[in-house]
């Protein structure tokens, strides 16, 4: 529905259109199809690539419908449309998870501080909310403004969900456009959530060098009462920490966490510790080290009550999104709930943040008193004994989603040898299917306790937004290409090989002077490797948004600060207005900012949504091999596709013949291939000769190292002789002759604007 005067008036009111910080751009608070033409332009080059899980559609009672061999379902949908619909549903799931998280935080903080509570991200962050500014046209000033942001996201979600109903959308491309819209909203939701918690819980901001904090299950003092927070919402944990401090016992307990709540816990108190990523959830909970398990939301195992019961850990569930069928104690008095948990061993649901935090602080020292015998870590002797019942039937191998040779490792453990089991543990994604399948009930995950490293590591406390001053410093080198790129390593821990690969990839690019930004489980994994001197990448590299920097922005919702940094480059360096100007900003990023995401272990729908949101704003994403199971990618075909763009200065269409960036969302099979692909996807048409030389130098160097030759697509990225890295000059020149390379046109202001029908004038991209 196009916007009428009433709706326009409503939007103007929401975004305070009369405020003159920037003129209101063409798309304030876009609805689900308002940026469709931009999406279709992207999808013309980066076409959807589908890998269906299933041949049928089983969504309605017409079905099941066979969609093989060009057959259509009873409703008329085809296999491509059905995959597009899956993609939209994944995007909606992810966006809803972040959106509901943000909604909870905003509502909680408004109850606490009121709607007029000011947003202040410190002296170094003036562009506080680039997503809200760019997408909505609103410069948020208060918690009440953040509420407007989440209301806008919620409105978009209802339209997205409606399109997935049978008899609604049928075109794969339109499903993708809607997915991109929801992905864009996801970044707004994440931004709202992280700004809300940063101001509400007083997390560090405007500081680059945040402290280092403890990381790894080995860093936990199990002789102290231990609480383990699992999930992605730190509201209750912050209240609990306050109560522990008030009671004067904070130093006598261990506040630990798994997944993103732990990121936010260490932003609240650097005495808190991170156990590790999601893949270590079941492993750690089975150790019994946690006297109290406190769940909130997102990425929490569905069988936590069972796991907690098995080790005698107390359990408090605190979110209405994960209630586990537990009795709701929200209405009871604190002391009564404490009694039920401590004396009767009751697992409880408490939906009130303040009450749950207070109960947790009171329960923790009490439940810990009688659990010392439950915290016995499995020794090698014990593991050998536990493994004896294994008959090497290999059922564990067959159900392992990471194809690990568990049965051979168990056979070795039976003989007292642990090297294979250590290797299995390093690759274990923590699903627990092996144990579930075992007819002999071998406690495989417990046995891993004897094979795991109990080392301690350091992680940089999440720092939240990138500072404006940092953007001012690096904006030009990023756009010119002399800083070869921004590598954002984010997402979950469904890694295809050893967890250490994340640290290895991060360090490779840090050494090469890319800017390496991390978040979420990936930021944890990156800290879980030490060099010969015992240092992690957080010990070794500066935490600045600058060439060779390695920085952790925080939990998954802090991803909005990474994508926001790309928007800030367009705004602070290139002086493009953000306000309701999404198409221009996305076009700028796509064509001129060499930023690429890596989600090496993605498993969640949230990761899919974040990636799709990145794609709409012009940031390519590289995924690990598990991500083929998302079923949808956005790929170009470098030799066949049309790489024509507009030269914004000359206002002429130019066939650049240059596939940059080559894909928007691509799966790579190995770490080595991923690194090569990341280097290639940082190439942009806007690179100066000097910048292109630097980027090609890294691309060639990585390619030669891992593939043994010059890249066989090098001719696509050399525009003229000046682009050739000096160190490879002779070799590359000879190669180019053999493939009949010819110089390509140069242009200084590449843009998609003008290559498709749009209301945006080409002049809008020229500043």
């Amino acid at each position, binding site marked *: 529905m196009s916007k009428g005067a009433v709706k326009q008036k409503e939007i103007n009111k929401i975004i305070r259109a009369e405020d003159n910080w920037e003129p209101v751009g063409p798309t304030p608070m876009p609805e689900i199809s308002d940026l469709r033409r931009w999406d279709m332009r992207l999808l013309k080059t980066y076409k959807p690539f589908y*890998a*269906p899980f299933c041949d049928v559609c089983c969504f309605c009672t017409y079905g099941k419908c066979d969609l093989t061999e060009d057959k259509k379902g009873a409703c008329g949908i085809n296999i491509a449309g059905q995959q597009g619909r899956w993609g939209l549903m994944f995007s909606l799931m992810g966006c809803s998870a972040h959106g509901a998280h943000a909604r909870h935080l905003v509502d909680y903080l408004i109850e606490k501080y009121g709607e007029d509570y000011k947003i202040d991200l410190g002296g170094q962050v003036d562009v506080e909310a680039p997503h809200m500014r760019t997408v909505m046209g609103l410069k948020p000033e208060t918690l009440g403004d953040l509420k407007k942001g989440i209301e806008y996201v919620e409105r978009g979600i209802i339209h997205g969900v409606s399109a997935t109903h049978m008899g609604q959308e049928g075109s794969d491309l339109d499903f993708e456009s809607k997915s991109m819209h929801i992905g864009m909203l996801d970044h707004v939701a994440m931004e709202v959530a992280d700004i809300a918690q940063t101001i509400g819980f007083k997390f560090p901001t405007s500081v680059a060098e945040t402290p280092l904090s403890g990381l790894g299950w080995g860093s936990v003092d199990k002789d102290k009462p231990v609480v383990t927070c699992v999930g992605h919402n730190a509201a209750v944990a912050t209240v609990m920490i306050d109560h522990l401090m008030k009671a004067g016992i904070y130093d006598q307990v261990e506040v630990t966490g798994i997944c993103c709540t732990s990121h936010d816990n260490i932003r609240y108190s650097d005495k808190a510790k991170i156990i590790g990523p999601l893949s270590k959830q079941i492993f750690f909970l089975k150790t019994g080290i946690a006297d109290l398990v406190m769940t909130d939301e997102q990425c929490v195992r569905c069988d936590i009550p069972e796991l907690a019961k098995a080790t005698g850990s107390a359990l408090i569930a605190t979110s209405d999104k994960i209630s586990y069928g537990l009795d709701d104690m929200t209405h009871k008095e604190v002391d009564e709930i404490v009694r039920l948990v401590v004396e009767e061993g009751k697992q409880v649901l408490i939906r009130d943040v303040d009450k749950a935090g207070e109960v947790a602080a009171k329960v923790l020292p009490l439940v810990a008193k009688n659990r010392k015998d439950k915290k016995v870590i499995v020794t090698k002797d014990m593991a050998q004994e536990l493994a004896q019942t294994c008959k090497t039937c290999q059922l564990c191998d067959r159900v392992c989603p990471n194809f690990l040779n568990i049965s051979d490792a168990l056979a070795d453990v039976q003989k007292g040898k642990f090297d294979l089991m250590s290797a299995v543990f390093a690759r274990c994604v923590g699903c627990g299917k092996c144990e579930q399948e075992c007819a002999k009930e071998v406690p495989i995950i417990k046995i891993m306790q004897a094979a795991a490293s109990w080392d301690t590591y350091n992680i940089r406390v999440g720092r939240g937004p990138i500072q404006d001053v940092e953007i001012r410093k690096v904006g030009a080198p990023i756009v010119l290409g002399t800083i070869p790129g921004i590598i954002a390593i984010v997402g979950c821990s469904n890694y295809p090989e050893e967890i250490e690969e994340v640290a290895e990839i991060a360090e490779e690019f840090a050494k090469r002077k890319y800017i390496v930004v991390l978040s979420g489980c990936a930021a944890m994994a990156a800290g879980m490797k030490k060099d010969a001197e015992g240092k992690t990448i957080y010990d070794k590299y500066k935490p600045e948004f600058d060439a060779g920097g390695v920085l952790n922005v925080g939990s998954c919702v802090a991803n909005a600060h990474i994508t926001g940094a790309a928007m800030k480059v367009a705004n602070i360096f290139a002086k493009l207005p953000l306000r309701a100007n999404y198409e221009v900003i996305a076009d700028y990023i796509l064509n001129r900012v060499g930023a690429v995401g890596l989600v090496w272990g993605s498993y969640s729908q949230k990761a899919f949504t974040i990636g799709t949101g990145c794609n709409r704003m012009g940031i390519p994403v590289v995924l690990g091999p598990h991500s083929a199971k998302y079923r949808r990618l956005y790929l170009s075909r470098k030799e066949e596709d049309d790489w024509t763009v507009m030269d914004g200065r000359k206002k002429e269409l130019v066939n650049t013949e240059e596939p940059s960036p080559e894909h928007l969302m691509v799966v790579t099979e190995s770490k080595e291939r991923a690194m090569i692909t990341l280097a290639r996807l940082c190439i942009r048409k806007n690179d100066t000769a000097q910048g292109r030389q630097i980027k090609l130098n890294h691309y060639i160097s990585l390619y030669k190292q891992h593939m043994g*030759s010059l890249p066989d697509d090098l001719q696509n990225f050399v525009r003229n002789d000046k682009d050739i890295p000096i160190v490879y000059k002779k070799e590359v020149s000879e190669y180019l002759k053999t493939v009949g390379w010819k110089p390509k046109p140069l242009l200084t202001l590449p843009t998609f604007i003008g290559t498709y029908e749009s209301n945006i004038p080409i002049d809008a991209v020229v500043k």
Partner: protein
Amino acid sequence: MSLPYYHVNVFTGIKSCKVMEDPQTLAKIAKKAQRPLLVLGPKCGEVNLGGKQLLDYGIEIAKTLGAAICATANIKKKLLEAGVTPDSTYDAVEIINHLKDSDWKGVKKEGNHDFVMFLGIRPDLGNQGLSTLKHFAGHLKTATLCKYVFPNANFSLPNLKDDKWKEYLDNMIQGLKS
């Protein structure tokens, strides 16, 4: 069709592979192809079958059949070390993205391939890629040469132990030569 060895590849659908118990039959099918392609993945560099590298089996099959080679992931380096320059280098999803276009000119620019074999790709990624071809590339047939059932291929080996896999590949090569 047998249950795939790895449950992550369990079949959910209508159109599943034909399990080729007899390597000679698979060899006959391969020999009928006009423009065969062998896609080699990184596992080819990690597996040794009774003293012979899986990669060497791949090279021998390609040479015997006259199939073009596409190297995925980072297996190109090992191919070059073995003295073989692959006809193309793409990652798995990239070559599949090309193959699904019936008008594509193929890795040798002679026309798209009509028979595509896969060896050494990670099992879950392989089965997903084969699903793409099953649904969007009716113009070609696919076969897997790895030791497990891949439900989304047209032709798949049965689930085999390493010794039987080696035997299968040896017999298939004999079949290609005959």
